[in-house]
């Protein structure tokens, strides 16, 4: 009974959604404020990646909010799982020889690749969130292959705190010397398509990348963790 009522309601909802969306022409020009971002983005920011300059400079405050939401979710997860009387003693098995060898070879390469992605965020597709997730997946690979790999919780939380603080301090420095929060003119803008260019955008993305990487690594470690007595 509940199933059929839900299907009728969803068909109704779907009909109205398709009617609204069908008024948009698919694949045709529909510029709004993005025309200013696209036309003047290069001369105001000198970064090649337009999506990065929107996310960090024009909509930089939203990125600060997003980093806060991610921090809140990781903290809530750590708090809830510490009070849980979950089944913590289940049999984790040691990885096979192929997995151990591959993980040992790939772990430094993955961290290097993640750092490359977030350092070059203003030149190539990529940025802080992608690079941070690649670093977290490197930690995940090591956790899956060895039983004796314990990331240092203290080092992860100190890195995360310092990186988050660096983001806010760059914003405040923009307020003091630049005229507005997260202003982009306190560092020289440089030339287009070079590594040291685009003002504070690379610094902000490095802070975001380190923060997201250490946060997601801590989240995965919390979820996999076993208690100390059952080792």
């Amino acid at each position, binding site marked *: 009974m*509940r*199933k059929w009522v*839900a*299907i009728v309601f*969803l068909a109704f*909802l*779907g009909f109205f*959604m*398709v009617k609204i*969306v*069908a008024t*948009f022409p*698919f*694949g*045709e*020009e*529909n*510029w*709004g*404020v*993005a*025309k200013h*971002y*696209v*036309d003047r*983005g*290069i001369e105001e920011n000198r970064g*090649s*990646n*337009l*999506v990065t300059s*929107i*996310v960090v400079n024009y*909509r930089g405050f*939203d*990125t600060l909010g*997003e980093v806060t*939401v*991610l921090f*809140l*979710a*990781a903290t*809530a*997860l750590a708090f*809830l*799982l510490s*009070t*849980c*009387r*979950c*089944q913590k003693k289940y049999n984790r098995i040691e990885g096979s020889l192929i997995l151990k060898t591959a993980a040992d070879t790939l772990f430094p390469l993955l961290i290097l690749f993640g750092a490359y992605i977030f350092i070059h965020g203003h*030149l*190539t*597709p990529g*940025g802080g*969130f992608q690079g941070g997730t690649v670093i977290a997946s490197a930690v995940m690979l090591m956790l899956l292959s060895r039983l004796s790999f314990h990331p240092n919780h203290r080092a992860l939380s100190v890195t995360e705190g310092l990186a988050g603080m660096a983001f806010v301090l760059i914003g405040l420095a923009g307020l003091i010397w630049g005229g507005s929060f997260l202003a982009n003119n306190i560092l020289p803008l440089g030339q*287009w*398509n070079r590594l040291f260019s685009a003002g504070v955008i690379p610094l902000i993305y490095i802070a975001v990348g380190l923060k*997201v990487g250490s946060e997601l690594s801590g*989240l995965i470690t919390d979820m996999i963790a076993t208690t100390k007595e059952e080792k």
Partner: protein
Amino acid sequence: MAFFIASIILILVGLYAVLVKKNIMKIVIGLSIMDTGVNILIISLGFIRGRTAPIINTRDLLVNTSSKVVDPLPQALVLTAIVIGVAVTAAALSIVMLMYSRKKTLEIDEYKELKW
């Protein structure tokens, strides 16, 4: 146009799982499918035929840019939305694990303390 209809069907399938299913993990999976559908809808609203990605790495894209690239604003919004989706899923799954450790069951009909 096919992108619009497919993403709307994905949203409706996710919403069906949230409304009808009785297992908590199915509800969280439906929430995650709904997130993916909404993101595809937003990016397909910004697509323009025949143009290229908004990364300007050659000199001939520097002049007259707004007639050669796709709209970059929906991509910036969806970047935020994907990360927030994974944060919400992680928080929901930690609550599911906590609920299972109290009553050892995943059916929502067994959790009756708030009903009268």
